[in-house]
């Protein structure tokens, strides 16, 4: 795998894109629904019917007088640690004419402090074998600075980490270099079809809401100045607006004096309230075709507006999504790959925040079967609301989720993330401990109800990225098509389809 270092988003895509030799699961539910075509259940393998219930480890909590909250999940399996400062303000605080400021602020933290130059930060962190990364999404609730390293180097690591979090100087020369570098990176991203699909899809769903943005607008980047970054930083990067979350081979007794030394004299301040914009009402269904000449596949992404993180429908959507396309045992994978051979993979996904997230289904299919894939996507999305999920299919989905908690005990980093989620959304303290019960309580009626409620075909947004000359006419069978180029500029109007 030859990856290019890049922003997190690109790396994620590259993992999907560059791996040339992974076989992914087929899966199936044999005897019941039509989704079982091509899958056979012989039922001869020895399965232990008991779902192993596990007790999740408890995090310890402490705080400093300046308001900094500390969460520690002790895990001594290997002598390493990971720590993050979660600043409770992110891209959602950006002004409407300056989207990206939170993201730029995070990205430039490590490009110079009052004590260290950009190069010194790079050399010192790398010499310790430490990672150091900071980011904030354009529509995120938080900004996060993360470091991970060897426990024997924790003091030196913490010294640099605190310096970067507290004392960034945003040197104008580094800001200028960052602008130029980022402008060329944005060009590079436009060559990635999954990026183009996500960009068009989020725009279709969110309109002028910040969640419509996947990358910062070029206008924001161009006007970026050291002064604006410093102002964002000094307003929001404050101990009373942050959580320090740590996981690894360190105890609270050893950690707290170090935290006190690194962050004890960090000054608190009043934090301006940020209004969370609500997602717009769903627009009428539309097909957005992004022309990418030379494509041999069509990247399809279909979906609707979903739920907020604290929605009472959360667990019903979780299970409905699992049944629809949550991995190789989902209906989409079974239908589009195992039965039809259209694709390497087909999945669904939902996101949720303090505003409504999206619920999407996606796949990459060879251009020639764009029509067939569209047909099957529509079939599966519709079927989830019209047909009640079978008892076996629902029980399997529940077992998959609940059983998976045993595996999470080997992933303390994701357990810590769960705890942060609980804090961010003010979920009950026993939220994760009672998660299995909440999953168990969901019924087939619940699944059908949320499918009908959220996967509303009248508001379904469809994005196709591929060769428009070969797919435009096909797609027009499924609705009104608008054609765009890879820069997001409309190059055809719906009437051209006629």
């Amino acid at each position, binding site marked *: *795998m030859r990856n*290019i270092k890049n922003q997190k988003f690109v790396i994620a895509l590259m993992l999907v894109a560059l791996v040339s030799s992974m076989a992914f699961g*087929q899966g199936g539910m044999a005897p019941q629904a039509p989704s079982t075509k091509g899958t056979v259940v012989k039922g001869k393998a020895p399965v232990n019917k008991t779902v192993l219930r596990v007790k999740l480890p408890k995090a310890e909590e402490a705080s400093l007088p300046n308001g900094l909250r500390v969460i520690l999940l002790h895990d001594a399996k*290997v002598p390493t640690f990971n720590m993050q400062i979660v600043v409770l303000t992110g891209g959602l605080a950006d002004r409407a004419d300056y989207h990206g400021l939170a993201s730029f602020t995070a990205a430039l933290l490590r490009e110079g402090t009052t004590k260290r130059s950009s190069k010194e930060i790079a050399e010192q962190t790398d010499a310790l074998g430490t990672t150091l990364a900071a980011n904030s999404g354009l529509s995120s609730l938080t900004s996060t600075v993360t470091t991970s390293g060897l426990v024997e180097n924790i003091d030196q690591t913490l010294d640099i980490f605190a310096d970067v979090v507290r004392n960034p100087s945003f040197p104008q020369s580094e800001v200028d270099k960052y602008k130029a570098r980022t402008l060329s990176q944005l060009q590079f991203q436009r060559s990635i079809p999954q990026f183009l699909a996500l960009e068009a899809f989020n725009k279709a769903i969110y309109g002028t809401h910040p969640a419509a943005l996947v990358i910062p607008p070029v206008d924001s980047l161009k006007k970026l100045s050291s002064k604006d970054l410093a102002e964002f930083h000094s307003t929001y990067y404050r101990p009373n607006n942050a959580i320090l979350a740590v996981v690894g081979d360190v105890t609270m007794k050893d950690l707290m004096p170090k935290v006190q030394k690194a962050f004890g004299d960090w000054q608190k301040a009043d934090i301006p309230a940020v209004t969370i914009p609500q997602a717009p009402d769903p627009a009428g269904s539309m097909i957005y075709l992004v022309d990418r*000449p030379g494509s041999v*596949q069509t990247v399809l992404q279909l979906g609707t507006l979903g739920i907020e993180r604290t929605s009472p429908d959360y667990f019903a959507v979780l299970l409905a999504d699992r049944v629809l396309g949550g991995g190789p*045992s989902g209906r989409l994978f079974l239908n589009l790959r195992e039965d039809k051979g259209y694709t390497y993979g087909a999945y669904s996904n939902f996101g949720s925040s303090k505003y409504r997230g999206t619920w999407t289904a996606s796949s990459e299919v060879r251009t020639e079967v764009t029509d067939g894939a569209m047909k099957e996507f529509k079939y599966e999305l519709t079927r989830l609301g019209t047909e009640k999920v079978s008892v076996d299919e629902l029980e399997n989905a529940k077992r998959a989720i609940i059983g998976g908690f*045993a595996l999470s005990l080997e992933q303390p980093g994701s357990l810590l993330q769960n705890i942060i989620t609980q804090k961010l959304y003010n979920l009950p303290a026993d939220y994760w401990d009672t998660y299995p019960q909440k999953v168990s309580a969901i019924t087939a009626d619940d699944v059908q109800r949320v499918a009908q409620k959220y996967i509303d075909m009248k508001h379904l947004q469809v994005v196709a990225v591929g060769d428009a000359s070969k797919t435009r006419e096909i797609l027009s069978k499924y609705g009104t098509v608008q054609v765009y180029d890879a820069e997001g500029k409309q190059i055809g109007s719906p009437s051209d389809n006629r």
Partner: protein
Amino acid sequence: MRRVSKFLSLLSICALGVVVVHAQAARNVRVDFKETTLKNGLRVITVEDHSAPVIAVSVTYNVGSRNERQGRTGFAHLFEHMMFKGSENVGSGEHFLLVFNNGGNMNGTTNEDRTNYFEVLPANQLDLALFLEADRMRSLAITKDNLDNQRNAVQEERRLGVDNQAYGKSGEVQQELIYDNFAYKHTTIGSMDDLNAASVEDVAAFFKMYYAPNNATLVVVGDFKTADAIAKVRSNFETIARQPDPPPVDMTEPQQKAERRASVDDVLARAIRVDLAYKAVPGNSADFYALQVLSNALQSGQSSRLYQKLVKEKEMATNVGGFMDEKRGVGALYTNVQLRPNVKTEDVETLVYAEIDRLKKEPIADWELQKSKNTTRRNFINGLSSSISRAITLGQYTVYYNEPSLINNRLEKVAAVTKEDVQRVANKYLVDTNRTVVVTIPKAKARPTTGTSGQ
């Protein structure tokens, strides 16, 4: 794919290794494993670990795309897909249903040098995991329908990773140019024509020759009693028939005599990219570890020489990256540079070669040596923290090097690398005549810009 992609990072971690050269005491991580060989030749490695209620199983077969013949590129990987299409007691696709629906996770991967299969499950499903692996090793179901279905899936995998991605073809061109011996002179994903040519007879013959117990290593890690686990392994696997050993692969790679160069026109790319490779040495050799340290100083992280020179100081590149590839046969040191607009390829190459010359003339700095060792150590020991990564790593070291204990002494081998070693390997391998250069040039496909572009 997103659900299981964590396995990708685990796999890449396996390529690294080191110990600390630091004042403070660094705790080492030791993996206590037990080796057993069954009567049919299956190598079994167990690691008892009660830290989490989880079991992980890996089966690593000593076969990869290096075993493929001309006209059947991509076959080892296509075969891997067939291993999920059913066996005597497991239906087509049932494997995945059984793993995922019991809270587990799984995957299979193929590279040039080996093919592996692995699953991690709650600890009460050890019988299930062993049964699934044994049943397909014993009695794979091979049908034309299943082959055609997976041929389609694999061809989409190729389109996804190669044909529909910017720079997708560049790696393929480069691999075919670097090597002379066919074993590595083709990609694991293979060509569309060769994938089309694969037959059920090919699948059956491949299964018999390579998927025999005497050509595999089974690793079981997790929350069990070793004696119990070995008894279960015996009852599941010991009756599977041994087969004649597969023929050895000739991995001889002739000495390269001159620089090799190719240019790729790419309609999907938007910036020039330069891919360099220096043919070097097999993995787990002293020079390999020295080249890893060298690569780390040259091109890993924002402190690296190439990042500082090309991205920060000269502002000629958007990004640089690279690594020392670990292979059973001869691997190469790779470097890639993504150019900014209006930058000349020659100017970038000149700067990269100047940095390489500096590695030949002067020793690297103390902090750079420390960087490499600390970074490798952190990555390596983090990779040991989960059962599944230990199962994969032990299987890989056994099949690659017949050396499972490498999991416990690899960091010492990296720690032994000196600045002099780095300078020596720079002079020995990073020479012009060992170099292969592929330049990718964006060639936008002509398209009318009017509103009627659709037809």
